[in-house]
C-alpha cells in the first residue's frame, strides 16, 4: 500500500516538476543513488586522507608516546615546532637535502629521462632493449636497489674502490660514510631509478603526438631540434605537468633508498626519514614526528598548489 502511494506521489511531483523543467533527467531516487555512489568514495577519502592529515596537525601540538588512551596526551602548544627548529640537529640538514634532491631531479635526472625518451621515440635500432634496460631499475624492489648500490659503494669490498685501488687505511674513499659525499652518491643511485621512470612516462606521451605535426614542421624546414622545442614540447603540455608534479613528489617523498642504506643518518637526513625515525619504533615521539610531517606537508603544498593553480588557470583562460 505505502509503496504504491509513494510511487504515485513521486510520479505526481515529478510530473509537476516536468512541467517546469522538461529536460530534467534525474529522479529523486537517482539523486540518492548518485549521492551514495559519490558519497561513499568521498567519505572513504575524507576518512583515510583528510582525517589522518588533520589528526597529524592536531597531534603535532602534543607530547604522546602512543601508550594509553587519548587522556595521556600532553598538549604542549608549539613546543615541538620550536624544538625542531632550534635544538634538533638533523632538521635543517634534512630540509637542505630534500631541496638538493629536488634540484638534482628537476635539473638533471628528469631532463635526462626526457632526452632518452625522445631518442627512444626515434625508433633507433634496439629501442626495445634500451627501453627495458633503462626501465629495469624502476621494476627492481627498493631493498634490492639499496643492496646493489651498497655493493658498489662499500669502502673495502665495493666495486668502485676496488677498481680504483682505494681500499687501504689512509687512502680510502668512504662513499657512503663521508657526509659530504654520500648524498651525491645516493643521488646517483636515485637518479638511476628516476630516469627510467620519467623516460617511460614521457615516451608514452610522445607516442600520442600526431606524427603529421612533426611532418608539417619538417616540411616547413624546421630542424629536429626546432621541431621538438617549438612543436612537440608545447603540444605535450599536459604530460609535462605530470612529469613535473611526479618529479616534485618523488623528491619530497624520497625515502626508501636512503633508509635501506643507512636509515637516514650521517649526511643522508631527509624529512620523510625524520618522520619515520620519530614515530615508528618502541617509544614513539608521535607529537614530534607529526610536527615534522606537518612541515613536510606544508612544503609539498607550497610547491605543488601554486604551480597547479597557475597552470590550470591559464588553461581556463585559453578556453
Amino acid at each position, binding site marked *: 500500500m505505502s509503496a504504491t502511494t509513494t*510511487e504515485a506521489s*513521486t*510520479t505526481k511531483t*515529478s510530473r509537476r516538476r516536468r512541467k517546469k523543467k522538461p529536460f530534467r533527467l534525474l*529522479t529523486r*531516487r*537517482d539523486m540518492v*543513488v548518485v549521492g*551514495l555512489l559519490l558519497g*561513499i568514495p568521498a567519505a572513504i577519502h575524507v576518512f583515510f586522507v583528510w582525517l589522518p592529515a588533520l589528526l597529524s596537525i592536531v597531534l603535532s601540538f602534543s*607530547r604522546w*608516546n*602512543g*601508550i*594509553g588512551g587519548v587522556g595521556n596526551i*600532553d598538549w*604542549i602548544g608549539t613546543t615541538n615546532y620550536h*624544538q625542531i627548529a632550534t*635544538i*634538533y*640537529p*638533523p632538521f635543517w640538514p634534512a630540509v637542505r637535502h630534500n631541496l638538493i634532491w629536488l634540484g638534482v631531479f628537476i635539473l638533471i635526472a628528469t631532463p635526462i629521462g626526457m632526452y632518452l625518451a625522445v631518442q627512444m621515440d626515434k625508433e633507433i635500432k634496439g629501442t626495445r632493449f634500451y627501453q627495458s634496460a633503462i626501465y629495469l631499475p624502476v621494476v627492481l624492489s627498493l631493498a634490492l636497489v639499496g643492496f646493489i648500490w651498497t655493493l658498489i*659503494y*662499500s*669502502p*673495502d*669490498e665495493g666495486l668502485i674502490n676496488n677498481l680504483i685501488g682505494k681500499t687501504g*687505511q*689512509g687512502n*680510502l*674513499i*668512504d*662513499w*657512503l*660514510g*663521508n*657526509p659530504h659525499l*654520500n648524498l651525491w652518491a645516493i643521488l646517483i643511485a636515485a637518479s638511476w631509478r628516476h630516469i627510467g621512470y620519467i623516460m617511460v612516462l614521457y615516451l608514452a606521451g610522445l607516442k600520442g603526438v600526431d606524427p603529421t605535426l612533426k611532418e608539417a614542421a619538417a616540411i616547413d624546414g624546421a630542424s629536429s631540434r626546432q621541431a621538438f622545442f617549438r612543436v612537440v614540447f608545447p603540444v605535450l603540455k599536459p604530460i609535462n605537468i605530470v612529469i613535473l608534479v611526479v618529479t616534485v613528489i618523488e623528491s619530497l617523498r624520497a625515502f626508501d633508498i636512503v633508509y635501506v642504506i*643507512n*636509515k637516514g*643518518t*650521517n*649526511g643522508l*637526513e631527509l624529512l620523510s626519514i625524520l618522520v619515520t*625515525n*620519530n614515530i*615508528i*619504533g*618502541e*617509544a*614513539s*615521539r608521535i607529537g614530534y614526528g607529526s610536527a615534522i610531517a606537518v612541515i613536510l606537508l606544508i612544503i609539498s603544498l607550497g610547491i605543488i598548489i601554486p604551480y597547479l593553480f597557475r597552470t590550470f588557470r591559464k588553461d581556463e583562460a585559453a578556453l
Partner: protein
Amino acid sequence: MTNPENPLGTEISRRRLLQGIGAAAGLAVMPSVLAACGSSEATTTTAAASGNQTTTAAPAATGTVSVGSNASDEVPRTAYQNVFDAFTTKTGVDVKVNTIDHNTFQEQINNYLQGKPDDVFTWFAGYRMQFFADQGLSTQIDDVWSEVGGNYSSPLKSASTGLDGHQYFIPFYLYPWAVFYRKSLFEEKGYTIPTTLDEFKTLCGGIADDGLVPIAFADKDGWPAMGTFDYLNMRMNGYQFHVDLMGGRESWNSDAVKQVFAQWAELLPYHQEGALGRTWQEAAQSLVNKEAAMYVLGMFVGQQFSDEERDDLDFFAFPEINSEFGQDSVEAPIDGLMLSKAPANMDGAKELLKFMSTGEAQGIYLASDPNNVAAGSDADTSGYNSLQKKAVELIGSAAHISQFLDRDTRPDFASTVALPSLQSFLNNPSDIDGLVKSMEDQKLAIFGS
C-alpha cells in the same frame, strides 16, 4: 511496474549494486568471525588433549600458552621451537608460537603490547624492559622469581628488576662485548694482551707500525660504536654513572662525558678509517682476513668466522682506564621473556617462564647457537666451545652487567639523539663541547615533562 522516469530500468540494478557493496562489506567481516570460530575450536581441542596428559604429569597449569617471538631467523626459530616442544612434553601445556619478523616486532611493540598480546613475549633486559613495565604493559613475576631466583647471579637479577623493584623479566641467554682478536695473529706477531689503557695504546701503536689496522671499526648502522662509548664511559666513570647517564639523571654536558669523548678522540687514529660507510660484518671480515688485529664487538662477531677458524677467535676484557673501577663491568645484553599485561593463561604462562629459567631449556636453545651463553647458573657448560666458556668466566667475574646503550636508555633517545650524535662525533671529533651540549638539550626535551 516500470518507473516512467526511468525508461532504461537501471534503477533495480543500481539497487542490486548497492546490495552487492553491502554484501562485500559483510564478506570482509566474515574472515574475522571465521577466525574467531577457528581459534576457540583450537583451544578447546588442545585443552582436551592436554587434559589427558595432565593425569601423568599433574602440574597445575593446563591449556595453551601463546608466545610472541621475535626470533624470525631460521636457526633461532627452530631452536625456540625445540625448547617449547620440550616444555609441552614435560608439562602437557601446549605452546602456540606467534613469530614476527625481528625488526617489525621491535617497531610495533607499542601497538602489540596495547592490543591483544600473546601471554608471553620475547624482549630485552634493562631500561627497555623497565620502560614497558613502568607503562603497565607487563605483569610482575615476583612469585616466579621467588622459585627460580637462585639460578641467577645478582647482576642478572638487577637487570630483570623494574623501576618499582618488582621482577618483570626472565633472562634466557646473553652474550658479552669485549675486544676480539685472532690468537694466531697475536702469536705470530708476539703481541701481548693489554689490561690497562697505556698497554692498549702501546699495542695499537705496535700494530700500526706492522702495517695493520689496530682496531676494526664500523658504524654505518649507527649502533656498533655505542659499544665502544659504553666501555670507555664505564671504565672512566663507573657503572653507576653509565646507568644514571642513560636514565637521564646525569648531564651529557658534563666534564665526565666530555672526557670520555676526548679519550675516544685520542684512540680514533687507531680505528679503521671510513667506519661510517661500513657495516659490522665488513669490519669483521677485516679481522677474519688478518688486516685488522682487534675489534670491540659482541660475541656475535663469531658469525663471520667459518667453523674451523672460529677456534682461532679469542677475546680479552676492555682494558682498565680508572683504577677505581678496574674492569668490574661487562657489557652483556640479555635476551629473555616477559609476561604481557593480562595473559589469558596465567598459570600456563608462569609455568613456561619457570621452565625457560632452567639451564635445561637454555641448553636446548644454545645447542644450535654457539654465539650466546645461557643465563641460568645451572646450565650445562660441558658442550660449550672455548669462546663460550671464556664468556661465562667473563660474565661471572663481573660485578655489574650493562645492557648496551640502546637497551639502557629510552628508545627514542637512543635512536633519534644518541645514534646520530655518535656518528657526528666520528665525523668531527674536534667539536666535543658543541656535541655534548646539543645532546643534553635534546635529552632534556625527551626526558623532560
